[in-house]
């Protein structure tokens, strides 16, 4: 029979996730009926699957080597580097390279069904541009340029994330260099990231491909309302006329 310790060790070595003892025990006892004949690796796999859908405040260890410093937000600190691997979950993602208003317009295009193939509407035309540019535009009856905006993919970021560690400490993360998988449509709320020796400047975590590993996952109970409420939140923010 596989011991909880073995499984915890396996999860730590494959995913660098320090699973909480209590959570693991609960997991094992809930699946105890079948557990006897399942090999440790398979059991670890199904535990990881559950972990990625869980709230890490309940499922991961709060040991101080696996969490963010509590004073991480201190804006007086110009720069510091954190040590080790720290798992966090995504609570919010925003595109700060694109105006709120154009993000709202992109959502509305989708609401009107214009993201459906053949239902795209060309809304802007470049007039008297460079011949190369205007030709590209002409070709745009169906294609690429319009498609990105019509499908609601608003922009290329950079993105501003709100991240939370196992102890519940929240911090803002800034995508300093393009990271694959960090995008409004791709990254679910509750997705898990692993931070590796990340830098912090003025209270903001600096995210780059070297300092971030995407583990994936999603917290359904957070993701669904986040998506449904996104337009309303954007509208509310623009109502203040200026964004600061």
């Amino acid at each position: 029979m596989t011991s909880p310790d073995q499984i915890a060790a396996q999860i730590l070595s494959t995913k660098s996730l320090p699973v909480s003892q209590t959570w693991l025990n609960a997991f094992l006892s809930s699946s105890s009926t079948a557990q006897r004949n399942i090999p440790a690796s398979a059991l670890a796999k199904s535990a990881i699957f559950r972990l990625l859908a869980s709230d890490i405040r309940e499922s991961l260890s709060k040991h101080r080597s696996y969490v963010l410093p509590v004073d991480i937000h201190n804006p007086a600190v110009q720069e510091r580097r954190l040590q080790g691997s720290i798992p966090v979950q995504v609570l919010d993602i925003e595109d700060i390279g694109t105006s709120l208003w154009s993000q709202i317009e992109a959502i509305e295009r989708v609401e009107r069904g214009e993201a459906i193939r053949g239902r795209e509407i060309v809304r802007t035309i470049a007039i008297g541009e460079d011949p190369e540019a205007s030709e590209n535009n002409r070709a745009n009856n169906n294609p690429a340029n319009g498609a990105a905006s019509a499908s609601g993919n608003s922009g290329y970021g950079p993105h501003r994330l709100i991240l939370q560690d196992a102890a519940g400490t929240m911090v803002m993360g800034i995508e300093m260099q393009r990271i694959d998988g960090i995008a409004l449509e791709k990254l679910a709320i509750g997705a898990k990231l692993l931070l590796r020796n990340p830098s912090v400047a003025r209270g903001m975590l600096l995210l780059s491909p070297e300092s971030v590993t995407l583990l994936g996952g999603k917290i359904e109970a957070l993701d669904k309302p986040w998506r449904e409420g996104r337009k309303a939140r954007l509208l509310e923010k623009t109502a203040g006329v200026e964004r600061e």
Partner: protein
Amino acid sequence: MARKILCVAEKPAIARAVATHLSGGSFQTHAIRGNQYVKNYEFDFNFGGAWGTCSVTMTSVVGHLTGLDFDREYKGWMSCPPGALFEAPVQETVDKDKLPIADNIRNQAKYSKALFIWTDCDREGEHIGSEVRNQAKAGNAQIEVKRAKFSNTESAHVRRAALEPVNLDEYQASAVAARIELDLRIGAAFTRLQTLQLQTVVAALKEKVISYGSCQFPTLGFVVDRYLRVQNFKPETFWGIKVILSREGKKVNFLWKRVHLFDRAVVTMMLERCLLAKQAKVTKVNQKPTSKWRPLPLTTVDLQMMGSRFLRLDSQTIMKVAEALYTKGFISYPRTETDQFDKGIDLKKLVEKQYPDNSWGQYARELIDGKFRTPRSGRHNDKAHPPIHPVSWVSPNQLNANEKKVYEFVVRRFLACCSDDAKGQSTEIEIQYGDEFFHTNGLIVLERNYLDVYVYDKWESSQQLPNFERGELFEPTEANIFDGKTTPPNYLTEPELIGLMDANGIGTDATMAEHIAKIKEREYVAINQRGGGRSSVQEFIPTRLGVALVEGYDNVVEGLPNSVSLSKPFLRKEMELRMVEICSGTKTRQEVVQQSLDMYREVFIHTQRRINMLKTACRKYLVEETTS
């Protein structure tokens, strides 16, 4: 039997021009009874081939001869439920004012062995040709029918067309017949429905006919869509970083690769990290030859877009003027989608014709003396007409002010097409400063080439950049945060509207200007002047009624799966695509009419059922107006 050929053009002016060229200027003119514009011109001409030398009567129609309408019992607005108009019987009859013209053709046909049709070579022309053919056959069932293929009224071109008759394109004529029937049924059904229903809602609409047209509404839709985007817009503040270096007595501005961001704290943090790095490193020095391409050969859509932008004429005026220049033989047929010149056309000869001009004659000479280049080819070819180009030179004092502008544009564009691209040298410098990247660009124009004649394009040298070496380090003179605000889009201008109609498949190049004029005439949109003086621009703003109609129809289909609003381009776009299928012979007129009617009937039923949506929208926008 007399060897007589009856020629029929689309307009009196074309009949006269063709008669002049074929007869060498000596012909007899006879008035016809009942119409003061149409004349019969008589002369002899050797057609060669099977016909040989014949006496010719050259006459014309004035556009379409016949009209399509419902049978009498359906004509009254209260005679039937509007929905019945989707099936009600229709009849094609000769318009009352065209009866003398039809009589003339029937009479002349009696004495002719062949009918030679000289209507314009496009879809409408093909249909008008079929109307002429029907009249001629009614006068002489045995008459042979041919048609001339021509795209301008220059003498040699016309004579060649006379020697090479072709057959009428029945497919194209059917496509127009289908469109006419659909426009009638759909237009009448919706116009009656919305007029009868909305008249009762608001006093302001009591006496008004609220017309519907399947092109007008999507056209209006674009104007309203942009208007609402402007109205609803909320400005937002953004921040960015700019880096300046003073070197060799020059001030170089570096632009941030991220352009700007909408979070001040983040930008501040990023700037601080730049400053901490102290030195910037040059990561790229790219020097390469660059060119600005000469324009493509001119199409109708481009003429309308560029014309309303540079010549300050609205698209309908431009088309009328171009039409006049074509009829007089100065430019080629102005309705064309083709942006590639056929290999057979002698472009140099056309350039030479411009030698006498005071403004660009010298330029034309230089082209022939060695600077001539074969024009670029675009992707469009309607297989009927070449791109719009000048066919002969005309002295400016023979033209009125608008003709002068349009003729000049057509010539300059043509000469530009036959010129070399403008050449220059571009320099791109990229630097890394902290984690951030910045760049600056320089341009030196070396040879202006086509820009010398095409005064509408601008391409100018920038300030010269100091020298940079790849990998070199330097300390920027300044690095600062700047801020700014997002601005709303502008209201729609005419060139943009034409561009949108074209891109979304509304109307054909030939009819776009009419649809735009229609929505102005119906008071669905108004014109607003932005700015003053030379830089003033005309913009379209919807009226309250215009906004109400679009919102009403959008609400009618709100929440219905697979149903699209009449204010959107899709239904019309599909209809236009089906017209093309008739032209290529893959669908019949009957099939297309049925399919398109089914599509619109569905929306009609929704509209009837949810007519309150339309009424509410009208109340919302129009009652407010009367009380305020």
